[in-house]
Structures are given as C-alpha cells and as structure tokens.
C-alpha cells in the first residue's frame, strides 16, 4: 500500500515536472473548476469523473463549484472577469454557448469564450420506457404520422440540444411531435418514467443510467455506442443525424498562450487515460479529443451547423 502511494507520488511528480518543463506555465495550487449549472447534470458528472484523475496525474486539487443561472449564461458571462493565471477554469457546453448569445444579449459572445478543449459529447437519443409500445424508431414515426402532434416527448430545456434534435428529426421524418421542455435531463427522464410523456429526447447517458427501465430507439452517432451494441444509429435507419451536447473547458481570455497550451495538454492526458475513457464510456458518454489547436476549426463548423438548424427551426432570427 505504502509502496503504491510512493510510486503514485513519484509518477505524479514526474508528470508535473514534465509539464512544467515543457511549458513555462505551471500550477501553484488547487484549481477552481466552475460548472455553470447546478449539481447532478452531465456537466457535473463528467467533471467529477475528471477530478480524481487530475489529482493523481498533476498532484493538485480540482475543486468543483457550481454557478447556476440563466441556463449557463451567468457563469459564461462572468468567465472573462476571472483570474487568468490558470487556476480557474470553467465548463462550456455546445450548443448552449452558440444558441444563447444568438437569441438575446446574455452578457457574453460565443467567440469571446477561450475554449481550449472539448473532451466528450453525449449523443442525442430517443428514449422510451421498457414497456413502451414503440419497439423501433419506425413505430414512433408511424404513430406520429397517424396522430400528428399527439406524440408528446420530453426534453431538457428549450433551444437546447434536445430541442434542436427534435425539430431536426421532425423535419427529416416528416412528422409532427410535441416537445415539452423540462428543467434538466433528470426531470425529463422522471416525466418519461412516470408516463407523463410517450418518449424522451435524451442522451445515451440516460440509457446508461436507467439501464433496464428504458430502451433507446436510436442514437445520433457515427457508429453504435460500445455500451449499447444493439441500439441502431439514426444513420443506419436513414436519418443523417449525428450530434448531441458537447462539453469542454475554457479559460478566462486573459490567460497566456502558455497556460492555454498547458491546460490543453493536461486535459488531453486525462482524456487518453484508458481507465478514464472506460469510466466515461460506461457512463454512456462518447469521447472526443479536440485540443486547443483544432478548436477554431471545430467551433466554426459546429457554430455554422447550430445557427443554420436554429434559424430553420425559427428559434433565432
């Protein structure tokens, strides 16, 4: 036990050393990791997954705090006023950071956020209860065609990933469903399990968390999720839908280039840890490795797509 601890400390020390020599920036104490939502959501849980790995690899505490309000806007609007010395980071979410500022003035702009790494995404999925009459996606489409508007689906929030997916899918399948926004994925799942709605626009994480209680009809991924080999992708079923909610981390824009590079490297290192990857996959997440160098390109492509979808949906002008 003691030997293992010593070994771990040694490894951590060498890692820290490697980091501090490769870049001038270094960590001098614990890091404040702000989640701009309340606890219990996907953003919180993925941050909690990172927490022990960060401590193990870099020897510093990653302190998670919550700054909820305005669907994340309160946190993001305050980000650039925070200390940019690398000891304060904040979670960022797509499509939130694109759609919110496009709708109204919420105190920040998409391009002002200094995002340095996108580390995972939760693919969109249609979820039904285990005893639902919808066995396949086609069953749901057939019902919606026969009774326009009567297929009521819950989801998390308006103008959110869930809502955009619903609008996009309705258009593709030429159906009309009713979307009921709830406060967060947890509430949307509760409504599904309580049979208040017929289906839910959720994420693969819902399938992982609820296990046998629910069934996913399709997931919006390139290939099937390793945790759910039996669930088809939308693509297989003829709908070109790949996407979901993407999560990453940003620094205040006063942070130096070195600090940014250091952070990008550190998060990449956690992200490539096989144990971490396995934990995330078991939780239903899908991994993503967009580091600081690829960020501009990634953000540009995503932003264009979200704005186009939102415009078509009438959510923004």
């Amino acid at each position, binding site marked *: 036990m003691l030997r293992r601890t010593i070994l771990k400390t040694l490894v951590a020390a060498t890692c820290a050393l490697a980091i501090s020599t490769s870049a001038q920036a270094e960590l001098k104490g*614990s890091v*404040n990791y702000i989640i701009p939502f309340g606890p219990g959501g996907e953003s919180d849980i993925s941050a909690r997954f990172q927490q022990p790995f960060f401590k193990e690899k870099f020897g510093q*505490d990653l*302190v998670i*705090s919550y700054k909820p309000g305005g669907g994340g806007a309160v946190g993001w609007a305050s980000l650039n006023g925070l200390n940019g010395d690398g000891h*304060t980071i904040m979670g960022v979410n797509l499509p939130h950071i694109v759609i919110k500022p496009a709708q109204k003035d919420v105190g920040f702009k998409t391009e002002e956020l200094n995002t340095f790494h996108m580390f995972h995404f939760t693919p969109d999925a249609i979820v039904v209860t285990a005893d639902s009459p919808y066995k396949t996606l086609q069953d749901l489409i057939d019902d919606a065609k026969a009774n326009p508007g009567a297929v009521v689906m819950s989801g998390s929030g*308006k103008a959110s990933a869930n809502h955009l997916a619903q609008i996009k899918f309705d258009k593709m399948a030429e159906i009309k469903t009713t979307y009921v*926004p709830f406060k967060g994925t947890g509430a949307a799942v509760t409504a599904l399990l309580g049979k208040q709605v017929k289906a839910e626009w959720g994420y693969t994480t819902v399938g992982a968390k609820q296990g046998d209680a629910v069934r996913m009809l399709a997931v919006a991924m390139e290939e099937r999720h390793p945790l759910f080999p039996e669930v088809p992708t939308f693509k297989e079923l003829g709908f070109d839908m790949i996407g979901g909610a993407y999560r990453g981390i940003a620094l205040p824009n006063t942070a130096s280039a070195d600090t940014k590079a250091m952070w990008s490297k550190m998060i990449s290192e956690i992200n490539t840890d096989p144990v971490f990857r396995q934990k995330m996959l078991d939780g239903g997440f899908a991994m993503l490795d967009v580091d600081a160098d690829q960020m501009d390109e990634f953000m540009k492509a995503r932003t264009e797509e979200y704005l186009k979808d939102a415009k078509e949906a009438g959510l923004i002008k």
Partner: protein
Amino acid sequence: MNNSPVIQGRLGSLIVTAFFFIAGIVALYDTTSYSDTDSQVFPQTVAIGLILFTSISLITQFLKPSESEGFGSGIWWRRALLIVTMLLACAAMPYVGFLPAGAIAFAGGLIAAMHDRWSARTVLVYWGSGIVVMVAFFTLFKFALQVPLP
C-alpha cells in the same frame, strides 16, 4: 404629536401599495417583448393578479385606513450606517480584497449597534472579537470550503 406615526403608517402603506401596482404595470409591459408564449403566460397572469390585488388593497385602504406601524422610533443614522458600510464593502471588495472590505462592514455595524458608552475595555474586546470572527470565517470559507474569495 401622537398622530404623526399613524399618518405615516397610512400614507406609507398607500405609497408602498402604489409601488407594487406600478411594478405590476411594468412587468405586464415587459411581457409584451417576450418571443415565446411559454415564458409569457405565467408572468402575464401574475402581473394581472398583482395589479388586481393592489387595486383592491388601495380601495380598501381609502375606505378603512391600514394600521401599520410605520418606521417607528429607531435611530436613522444607525440604520443607514449599517447598510451603507455593507454596500461600501461590496464596492471595495474587488480592489482591496475580502478581509479589508469585510472589515469596513464590520466596523460600520459595530458603531451602528453600539448604544453604550465606549470604554477602554469594550473597545479592546469588541474590536478584538471582531477580528477573530472575521479571520475565523475567512479561513473557514477560503481554506476549508475552498470558496475563491477575492
């Protein structure tokens, strides 16, 4: 002389009710700019309710004046000192840091609430305990609870 608190109570009550009435109107006007009916229906209903309740309240107050206590006989400069120093502390916090800013509020509150004569002993004990309380809380929040205090 006995009459003035009663009049203050009645008049103040009318003014406060009128303020709520205006708040209802403003809120109702604000709802017209919302783009989503889902976010419109609730504040609209509540604003109309508020306008309705305040109207009834105003009418009944004219018929039967309200018996509220008014501001009472407290000392105004003490109240003002407490609040002003607390706000001052907030304004100063980003520049001077949390502890010095908190000390401003503490000093203000201490002077505001001190009704006895200062003696050498009370000066020492009160200000001393103030410093102890502040440092203790600061340490608890900053280091045990890891709140990023400025």
